[in-house]
């Protein structure tokens, strides 16, 4: 690892930067694209040639201002129809953090896209038009954020300029949202009054809302604590592949490569290999840059053990006193992503960590109305964008944790064997 010693402190700042992944959802009318455009523009993350291109498109469309939403324009069809079809990923950085935005459409295929964007996010940005208050779409976004266990929710009450920047109007929407959010499972919810169009409280503090004493959106994104977003308690290392160099220098080397899914691994730790049940001790935690004293999620490492045990892809290295459950009957909250719904007693390939099995959908317990959060116990007909609680039976035991304890070992996807498409995503309940 060569850090060049000649750099000044300032150019070394990037060595302390963290990564924050957040998701946004909404339709064009919420001002979602305008908000993203505003964040990128005011944080100076947009290049001059992009600004020139957007200025010329704005003029072509007969606008007298630069349409910030055009910065997030994508594919040909989207430009023609003024819609977003698919999750688009966007990037910007400030001296403190690098940001990855999963920008998901609000209408078309909304569950599929929002769930995809939410699956890797630390934070969800929910946009509410102050004039409309909490609407169906707000509930839907918030529910999915809660279902996917996004640790932080930031609710931006937008278009404050159209409500005379009124504190009363803002308070009313906040109260309405809090009332609804009591049904959700989210620990950290914050509210910010903004105007994406004029830039109030996005990057720069608003001069029009003296009554608001909280932080701006960008400041919130830059400082929110994300250090606890990974599980550092329950040790889980799903083995991706076994590294055997067969070279003169490393003749007997046998390393288990994988990305740590939870906990902290150290040389000397007692470990248990599942499903075989063999125990051993960690000999070393290796990387090309040298061995590590400890390793934690989400690091990619190679672990060697004191004993020669037969270990292969799909196995999991854990601690003897803290094990995942080994189960063949798995209770999951399933999001159906495919156009074609499941047929009765349909069989699928299930992918979980680095493991794969086949499974059958044994029972559909209920569907969830994602606008009202009501359980629909009578309607068990799953179609595209539905969310349902189901019982799966797998051909072999999977090594699972509940999703709310570990997103890595608590998530699955279902693949249709005939089309090879990813048809569903599931969060393990137990």
């Amino acid at each position, binding site marked *: 690892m*060569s850090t*060049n010693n000649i*750099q000044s402190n300032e*150019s070394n700042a*990037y*060595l*302390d*930067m*963290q*990564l924050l992944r957040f998701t946004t959802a909404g339709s064009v009318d919420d001002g979602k694209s305008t908000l993203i455009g505003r964040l990128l523009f005011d944080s100076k993350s947009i*290049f*001059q*040639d992009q600004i020139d291109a957007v200025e010329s498109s704005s003029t072509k469309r007969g606008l007298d201002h630069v349409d910030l939403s055009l910065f997030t*324009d*994508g*594919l*040909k*069809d989207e430009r023609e129809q003024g819609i977003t*079809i*698919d*999750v*688009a*990923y966007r*990037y910007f950085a400030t001296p403190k*953090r*690098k940001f990855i935005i999963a920008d998901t459409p609000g209408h078309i295929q909304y569950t*599929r896209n929002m*769930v*995809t964007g939410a699956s*890797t996010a630390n934070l969800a940005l929910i946009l509410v038009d102050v004039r409309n208050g909490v609407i169906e779409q707000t509930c839907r976004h918030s529910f999915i954020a809660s279902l996917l266990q996004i640790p932080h929710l930031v609710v931006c009450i937008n278009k404050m300029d159209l409500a005379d920047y009124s504190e009363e109007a803002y308070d009313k929407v906040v109260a309405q949202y809090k009332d609804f959010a009591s049904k959700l499972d989210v620990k950290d919810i914050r509210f910010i009054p903004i105007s994406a169009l004029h830039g109030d409280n996005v990057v720069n503090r608003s001069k029009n809302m003296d009554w608001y004493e909280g932080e701006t959106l960008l400041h919130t994104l830059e400082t929110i604590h994300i*250090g606890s977003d990974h599980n550092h308690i329950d040790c889980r290392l799903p083995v*991706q*592949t076994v*590294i055997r*160099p067969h*070279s003169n*220098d*490393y003749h007997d080397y046998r390393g288990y*490569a*994988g*990305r740590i899914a939870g906990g*902290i691994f150290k040389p000397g730790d007692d470990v248990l290999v599942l499903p075989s049940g063999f125990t051993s001790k960690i000999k070393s935690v*290796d*990387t*090309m840059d040298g061995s590590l004293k400890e390793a*934690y999620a*989400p*690091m*990619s490492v190679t672990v060697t053990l004191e004993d020669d045990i037969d270990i292969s892809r799909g196995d999991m290295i854990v601690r003897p006193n803290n094990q995942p459950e080994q189960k063949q009957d798995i209770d999951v909250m399933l999001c159906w*992503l495919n156009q074609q719904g499941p047929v009765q007693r349909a069989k699928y390939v299930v*992918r*979980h960590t*680095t493991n794969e099995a086949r499974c059958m959908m044994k029972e559909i317990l209920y569907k969830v109305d994602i606008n009202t959060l009501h359980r629909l116990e009578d309607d068990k007909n799953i179609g595209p964008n539905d969310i349902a609680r189901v019982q799966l039976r797998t051909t072999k035991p999977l090594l699972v944790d509940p999703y709310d304890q570990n997103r*890595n070992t608590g*998530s699955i*996807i279902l*693949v249709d064997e005939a089309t*090879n*498409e990813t048809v569903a*995503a599931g969060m393990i309940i137990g």
Partner: protein
Amino acid sequence: MRYTLTHLKELEAEAIYVMREVYAQFENPAILFSGGKDSIVLTHLAKKAFWPAKIPFPLVHIDTGHNFPETMEFRDNLVKELGVNLIVGSVQQSIDEGKVREESGKNASRNALQTTTLLDTIESNNFDACMGGARRDEEKARAKERFFSHRDDFGQWDPKNQRPELWNLFNGRKNMGEHFRVFPISNWTEMDVWQYILYENIAIPSLYIAHEREVIWRNNSWLPVSEYIELGPNEKPEVKQIRFRTLGDITITGGVESAADNLEKIVEEVAAARQTERGNRADDKRGETAMEDRKKQGYF
């Protein structure tokens, strides 16, 4: 703060994870190596992913015949150092075999012809996954690309019908004849790549560092003078101190005037840049959706 990674370390861990998934899920994967900084970083990450074993993939270079000599020398040295196989797909051969026809005129380039050679090379070597160094921040069509991107048996990309990709669960299942393109550094930006090259002290071709070169001013950038370009009547070669922000064919890669003669200065220059890096690529200037159109047909 103790158990957090820096953004570069997190991106590195993600890329290594993706490459190990490719190794585990496919039978015959390869790395698409252009000699540019992104594919050099990709190769460096592959070294890390499988250390202390050798990189278990061949490098595939689609050779247009219009290369910078520096890129070729760099490629050959790297292949020797890593002890991996190099497979070259030749655009000249595709032309000679009559599979593609060379463009003519002043702005002629072999860029679009590469797609045919690439797909032929994939087919004749039975590659079922090709890893590339494309990044989502490069271009609007790439912003929608998956890590594991499915291609039909014509090598085509269907942006409206992509498989959803959730958590770290990648689905590499396919039918015979189909293949995947995989992009382990999808989430990196140009800045991340440069910071990582600096941090890891990765060797790169000298073309990226400011140097004196004979160039002409064309399409808003300094195009290198070479035997492959036709000079217009008003185009007069001059010597400028330039560097390249991306490396493609010598016929389409424009340079920027620069005094950045080492990596630290390049990182500073990238941070202050007012133009996107592909702003100097003539291949992207052929219409607003030039990249999307090429990608659908099977381009990198």
